[in-house]
């Protein structure tokens, strides 16, 4: 559970919202995605100064000790601006995995570096299926006191900007997680040309690369980190969904045809009313999942899976209909609607598909007490 009050949570969200309004406008985003790294490092540093990169890291290690509820709320703000930094990897997944490890001295130093903004961590969590709930395709072999990693991790976000990776490996049916610096011999990054320019994806190949085992981190801890990651992503999508929806409603009120605002036409009104259900369902599912995870409620997994496919699907649906509702103007690359729509497509596949999580949701229902 979190020590943050609702007011505290709103305060850090306001702070983040102001920072993004100032530093991450649509114009700025369009500039950043044209750069080789695709990342605004100065903004990441400013987030670190505000304590945001250490949101889930305890105060004694330089963080601010929040929970997934704060993360979800911040991600709604991030999503509204299509923020594209390595927040989920570095500030959500990495701290959860590292905090679970028993080689305390090693991980404490890392957590401090994350909180201070000094280190960006990317996560190699899946193979070609893109599905974090399936077995990774990197294997680890012990050689004396050393661990040697081989294989490939796919759809890795922010690989180029990372200082180090946390790599999920298949270990005799279990999962083990390793730390490996980016410059380790045998580690190779292949950057891909993504359709969604706001999020870079890479394949990371390991050819007998040497990693450091996170002791005590197995399948259960990896699953728990994945659940927080999908709820953080759900929050981001819920925020993005609401933003593109609000932009669309504003357009329906201001665009005139036949001498009247087009929002007076019922065909568009009915689409808008239907979409409002999807917008609100996204917010409700993300927030309730975060609350359930934070309080370790028995239905937390079920709600996390529900939030995953609901927010992914609803973001795609609302951003797709946003283009249709705008008409020609949103078919131009200068209009932001396609940026949301493309990010929505990415989100449908990150960590695993909507169909996969819909199935897992049903499995949770089947076994619910």
């Amino acid at each position: 559970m979190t020590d943050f009050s609702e007011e505290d949570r709103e305060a850090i969200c306001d702070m983040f919202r102001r920072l993004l309004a100032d530093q991450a406008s649509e114009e700025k985003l369009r500039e950043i995605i044209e750069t080789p790294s695709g990342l605004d490092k100065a903004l990441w540093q400013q987030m670190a100064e505000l304590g945001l990169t250490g949101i889930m890291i305890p105060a004694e290690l330089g963080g601010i000790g929040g929970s997934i509820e704060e993360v979800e709320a911040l991600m709604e703000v991030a999503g509204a601006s299509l923020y594209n930094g390595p927040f989920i990897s570095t500030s959500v997944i990495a701290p959860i995995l590292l905090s679970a490890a028993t080689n305390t001295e090693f991980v404490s130093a890392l957590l401090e570096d994350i909180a201070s903004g000094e280190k960006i961590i990317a996560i190699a969590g899946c193979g070609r299926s893109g599905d974090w709930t399936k077995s990774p395709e990197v294997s680890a072999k012990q050689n004396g006191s050393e661990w040697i990693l081989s294989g490939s991790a796919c759809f890795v976000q922010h690989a180029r900007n990372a200082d180090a990776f946390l790599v999920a490996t298949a270990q005799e049916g279990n999962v083990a997680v390793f730390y490996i610096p980016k410059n380790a011999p045998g580690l190779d990054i292949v950057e891909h040309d993504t359709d969604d320019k706001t999020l870079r994806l890479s394949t990371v190949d390991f050819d007998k690369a040497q990693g450091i085992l996170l002791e005590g981190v197995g399948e259960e801890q990896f699953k728990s980190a994945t659940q927080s990651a999908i709820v953080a992503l759900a929050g981001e999508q819920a925020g993005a969904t609401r933003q593109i929806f609000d932009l669309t409603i504003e357009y329906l009120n201001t665009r005139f045809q036949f001498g009247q605002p087009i929002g007076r036409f019922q065909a568009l009104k009915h689409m808008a009313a239907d979409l409002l259900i999807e917008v609100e369902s996204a917010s409700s599912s993300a927030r309730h999942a975060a609350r359930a995870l934070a309080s370790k409620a028995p239905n937390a997994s079920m709600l996390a899976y529900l939030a995953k496919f609901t927010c992914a699907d609803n973001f795609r649906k609302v951003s797709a209909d946003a283009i249709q509702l705008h008409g020609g103007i949103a078919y131009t690359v200068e209009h932001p609607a396609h940026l949301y729509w493309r990010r929505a497509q990415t989100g449908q596949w990150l960590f695993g598909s909507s169909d996969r999580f819909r199935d897992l949701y049903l499995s949770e229902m089947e076994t619910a007490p």
Partner: protein
Amino acid sequence: MTADLKNEVEVWLTEHWDPEAECELGKGEYDEKSWLKKVVDAGYAVPTWPEKWFGRGLSPKDARVIENAFQKHKAKGWGRDRFHLGAITIYKLGSDALKSELLYDLLTGPICCLLYSEPGAGSDLAGVRTRAVRDGDDFIINGQKVWTSNAVEAEYGMLLTRTDIDVPKHQGITFFIFPMKQEGVEVRPINQITGEDEFNEVFISDARVPARFIIGELNKGWFSFQTAIASERLIMGQGITSRLRGAAGKTPALLKLAHDHDKLNDPVLRQEIAQALAYRQLNTLNMLRAKEEVAKNGSSSLASLGKLAMSRIQHGEARISAKIIGPQVLINETEDSRNANFDAAKAYMNSIGGGTDQIQKNIIAERVLSLPKSTDVSRDIPFKDVKSS
């Protein structure tokens, strides 16, 4: 105060009500009129109203203390200040004289029926054509109403009529409290696609209603009607939340059906079942958020989404139930088939009744999203010039 009140009601119920036989103590069977008189006389039927009008002047919170005690004892007649639409409307809009004449009768009688919709006035209720024509101290009523529940037992109906056809439609409507038990009122049940007949048609020919039974003012019935319909929406909202509460914690019906028919291994059906269950759960989560927002800010726009969301849920669940059952759904010889076919038809009750989904979408778009109102070509012309089908 609360503890004293609870104690007082408990004692009163113990002295007057038999929870085993669910009737008045010593009577052997339930006599509605006799029991309701006792409840009204004790001030328990409408506790939030002032003593002058059979209440106790209590806060809604204290009134719940009374309601809870009644429910605990399985006693009837509570909460008439929340659910008896006719009495509520007369209490809010009637003159003191009308209240003195009718309120006690209404409170101790069956609930009123609602004589609103007509064959030619469904979504566009302000287009009612049932005529009310002045005749001495009375009005004479001629016309037809539809979708009236409780029309057989009701002693009074809330009647929407046309009293002036030379002005635009909203300005020529008069709202009456109308005595049902008279010649000239014929009630015919409507056979519904579910096999039920909970609704009726009401044919009114030369029936009479005293002019003093006008609710509000002559030709200003549309305004009085808004008050009545607001109370009705409040009741519908309460009904929805309590039903959802009742469903929580049980194995979802769809999951049980799929299990019984051994379909939980079908990957395509699994997707459809999961999505259907998700829609239901998402609506529950939205309504929980609505409650939190109401507690915090006094209102929530989320509440208005529930009815529309429920249409997708109910039509979807019925469609998937049929898929789970397979071709056997064609044969109404099993309970599962009968339920699936009944539910498929019954889903229209939500998507048409109380305002179609399409009207609901207009309302959401205009009131929640503030999109411009649609034009009503009949709004500003004399009613006699309005085209009808």
